[in-house]
């Protein structure tokens, strides 16, 4: 527990430091070098905290208008949260199912090859390409599969969800595939095979149990991959999410609030994945 608290404190410090960076770094035109303006920091932080104490979250720039963060935060927060929650959970379930439980079938080989090909393309190019593809699809068939209008609801959301789940799937599937291969060579698997246990049984009771700690250890990395892509996705696909506060503004307030919301979102996603694991183990695995 102490470790979690320690981590959260470090992350919060990091966020506040990051949020103040745009105000701190300046270019000195005379000496042609970068100057760190540390003097105004206490004032900036002071204002940030007094603002928070007063219950005001401040304002952010949206296009040319200045809007209050408090007014928009709940909608934006839930949009981002739903994208991350569905995307990451789907990624984890898919990669576990393909990586462990149906790994022996031909379909996994196909799935693996497709993912391998897609994995060689950087995520942001995939996001760009998929958008071009969707636009061309609309031009050819007249069927609108995605919408860039922020208020378009599900039409605006399903595509970001798939894209947000993509990078975690690639990362996790590769990892699980390697671990499955390695675990398959262990002696306890040999014993289980020698006892005549069925492959499904071995997968559930022996393999999954031993791979799960690795997945749990990589969970933060997986979520942060998703978060990293979320920034690009919301920016390109014009999704009204939490990143709207962060870009376009150089003030400490919106950036810090946005990043803290991100932190809360990843915590919630982390807990939800843990819950899924817990339910899965209760349902299928003898503890």
């Amino acid at each position, binding site marked *: 527990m102490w470790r979690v608290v320690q981590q959260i404190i470090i992350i919060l410090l990091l966020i506040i430091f990051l949020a103040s960076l745009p105000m701190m770094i*300046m270019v000195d035109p005379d000496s042609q070098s970068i100057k760190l303006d540390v003097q105004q920091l206490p004032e900036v932080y002071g204002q940030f905290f007094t603002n928070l104490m007063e219950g005001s979250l401040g304002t952010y720039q949206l296009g040319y208008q200045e809007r209050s963060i408090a007014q928009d935060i709940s909608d934006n927060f839930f949009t981002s949260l739903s994208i991350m929650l569905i995307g990451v959970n789907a990624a984890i379930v898919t990669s576990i199912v393909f990586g462990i439980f149906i790994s022996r079938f031909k379909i996994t080989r196909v799935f693996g090859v497709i993912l391998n090909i897609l994995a060689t393309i950087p995520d942001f*190019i995939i996001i760009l390409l998929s958008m*071009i593809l969707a636009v061309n699809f609309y031009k050819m068939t007249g069927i609108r599969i995605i919408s860039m209008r922020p208020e378009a609801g599900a039409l605006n959301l399903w595509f970001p969800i798939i894209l947000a789940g993509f990078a975690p799937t690639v990362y996790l599937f590769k990892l699980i595939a390697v671990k499955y291969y390695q675990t398959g060579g262990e002696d306890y698997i040999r014993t289980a095979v020698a006892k005549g246990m069925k492959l499904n049984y071995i997968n559930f009771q022996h393999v999954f149990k031993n791979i799960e700690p690795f997945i749990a250890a990589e969970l933060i990395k997986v979520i942060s991959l998703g978060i990293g892509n979320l920034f*690009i996705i919301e920016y390109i696909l014009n999704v009204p999410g939490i990143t709207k506060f962060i*870009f376009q503004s150089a003030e400490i307030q919106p950036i810090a609030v946005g990043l803290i919301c991100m932190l809360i979102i990843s915590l919630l996603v982390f807990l939800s994945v843990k819950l899924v694991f817990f339910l899965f183990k209760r349902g299928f695995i003898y503890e």
Partner: protein
Amino acid sequence: MNKLKSINYSYYLGIFLVTFILFLCIFGPIMAPHSLNVTLETQYQDGKVLAPPLEPFENKDYLLGTDRWGYDLLSMILFGIRYTVFIALAVTVIKMAGGTLIGLYAGTMKKTPSMITAFEKAWSYIPLFLILYFFLMPISVNSVLGSDTLVAYFIIIASIISIPSVASSVRLKTIEVNKSIYIEAAKTLGAKRNRLIWKHIFPQLKESLLVMFILEVVYVITIMGQLALMNIFVGGTIMRFDPTIYLSVTKELAGLVGQAQGNIYGNVHILYVPLAVLLLTTISFSLLANGLKNKFQSDYQRTPWIKTGHDPRIMPTRKRYGSQSWKNVTLNKIVFGILILLFAAGGAYVYMKKDADPGVEQGKQLNGEAMAERFEKEELSYTVHIGEKNLVGDEWVS
């Protein structure tokens, strides 16, 4: 048939493509057909109007087309690709060196301090490109700093902020190796920490570090691309107002993609061309990494007892002791030899061609002196066909 299936295609293709990319990086500016300052001026050619933006593969002088101001895309790519690849390599070298050192020593500690793990996890939570974004945003747009300075800042900041993630994965691998029995044995024989690290652990990690190095190159290019989408170009952004456009100073590939992102609505080739080259660059490095991984995996893995979907199809290569001499000619060595020869020959050819007289550039005029000089050398000649009648004196003559 089986033999064909068991060839490590991505390895060979990766090596070939990476060599090709490196060739472009080194000799690119020499090969560029136009300079960065020359624009295609609107003109008639064979009764057709040539006007920017020119589509690719329409005109052989502007093979990949031009952007909407008439700058040659191929030339921009040839000038810019060295920035992309060399910056990525520089960042990767620094961060891998730092991360490996820290990871190796942190991984062989008796007990890892909880601060380190907490910091690692906290650091891995925040996307790296965001940190870079906040660093570079105040200094990059319409900067008074030179582009070299900005590139240097990018290299330093990008490598420093990504050292923790490299260090963390090296640390985990080190801990794994450190548990082995042969480490126990070496300790019993009196090996000190430095010897353990450099003679026993590091050689075990060499191969996975190589794969990691190449993957990190791709990762740095990805970060550059993500920043470019936010209009932060490595080496500086020129921002023009009315209408607001962003231009890359160095013309590096990610910057070219970023500055053309508005072209998704029209003249899409201005976006597609640099995007395709960027894609080729990242794919060649990923293919190489993938190929190396396949090779090492098939060499070192234990075969599992149950059926998995991921068995390597590549035959393992076994070291044959006593036959390790450069005199043993294998197919691999021949292929690599040919590749190196091609690289050198191509480079020499391009270098010699560099000063060949380009003649008069299309749509341009020679100034009087140069023209006279070349008429004298009889390099230029002219014939005049007069179809119309001219008035000479009082008479119309043809």
